[in-house]
């Protein structure tokens, strides 16, 4: 049986219909076929979160997700987060707090943080809750403190 399939999904709000191999990860399809190079391959085994994208607004590791499973779903990557040349609230908070060092983990962190902020809007969360919410992302520069502060600022602005 053929290993080729056609999938239809929304990427950053734009409908895409593309041919994929069932053996491809969502990460490979996003990077190689759609040019979404913010989606980084770090560990490739679901430990570092550098490939985090939002699948129907829920963060997943694109490296451990078959592209065919995205059929009919909606994907968000960092490429789609800014509007009219304005950074998203989370992106801006990362800039303001200096939450970016070498930058390789940043797109994954921004997406995980975006999902966390959207999920906890109007909820009181502690720094510990934020750390647990971002536990699926590694920053090898160890710049966690400013990242946590950036997320905290986003949620404070909402309350």
């Amino acid at each position: 049986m053929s290993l080729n399939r056609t999938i239809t999904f929304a990427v950053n709000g734009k409908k895409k219909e593309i041919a994929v191999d069932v053996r491809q990860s969502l990460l490979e399809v996003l990077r190689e076929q759609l040019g979404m190079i913010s989606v980084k391959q770090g560990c490739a085994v679901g430990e570092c979160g550098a490939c985090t994208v939002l699948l129907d607004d829920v963060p997943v590791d694109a490296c451990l997700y078959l592209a065919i499973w995205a059929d009919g779903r909606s994907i968000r990557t960092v490429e789609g987060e800014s509007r009219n040349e304005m950074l998203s609230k989370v992106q801006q908070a990362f800039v303001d707090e200096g939450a970016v060092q070498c930058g390789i983990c940043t797109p994954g962190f921004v997406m995980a943080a975006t999902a966390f902020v959207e999920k906890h809007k109007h909820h009181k969360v502690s720094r510990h809750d934020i750390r647990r919410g971002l536990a699926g992302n590694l920053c090898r520069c160890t710049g966690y403190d400013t990242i946590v502060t950036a997320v905290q600022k986003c949620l404070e602005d909402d309350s």
Partner: protein
Amino acid sequence: MFNFKSYSRADSIQEAIHLLKENPEAHLIAGGTDVLVKLHKGKGDFDHLIDIHGIAELDFISQKNDGDLVIGPLSCFTHVAESALIRKHIPVLAEAILTIGGPQVRNMATIGGNLCNGVPSADSATPLIALNAVVTIAGQDGSRQLPLEDFFLGPSRVALEHHEIMTAITVSRDNYAGYSGHFFKYAMRDAMDIATIGCSAVCRVEDEVLTDLRLAYGVAAPVPIRCKDTEDKIRGRKVSTQLLNDIAEAVVDDVSPRTSWRAAKEFRLQIIATLAHRVVKQAILNAGGTIQ
């Protein structure tokens, strides 16, 4: 690209069983967080995959009229941990699940996959064993039920015939009503780590008497286990610090941990005894008991 040779997708339980029968070498893939990692690392035989990721009838969490809780094996960890039913009736399962991986992994990984993978460190196994969970298994000749405790046969070996698929995980009302529990995972890191030892205690306390205790461990033996000799020994005793000391002493005879790169046997035995004391204590407190 993952290196498998054939792929078929099942949209129903019957279709999955049919495809398994047709493909004697095929493996099921559900959430993908174990199978795709093994494929990436080139471990094991995953040349032929049957994809059950999208079987909607296996993705549910419900309560029957008699109060029994039923979890569909394709429920992802996040859904189980955030379920109002689970949090209300068996919060010990939610506690355990929230120690697994990180949010991304919990959004993808399924509870049935965790159990069917059959590793001794499966964090969802010990709370479910302590809750006397029963699994339903469907095959070509119909379906059968098995206590989860008997489902684990050895490291990465479970009681599934090739053509069979887990279709439900049930915790009956009499096994959770009136009980409280606690879970603790000892690991080197607070997240994204595999348990050195996992421990679940579920108990019932009436008039300061421990009328029932069910104590389960992960990574304390080749499979997740219950400590039945200890449970039998202490059932019916009055709650006290001495009781906790006796449990911690007795439990060592119920387990058989081994040395691995993660921890030595002696260290594991130390953690097992310490957790017996702490986890049972917290479970007793949660059940309304008092310990001086």
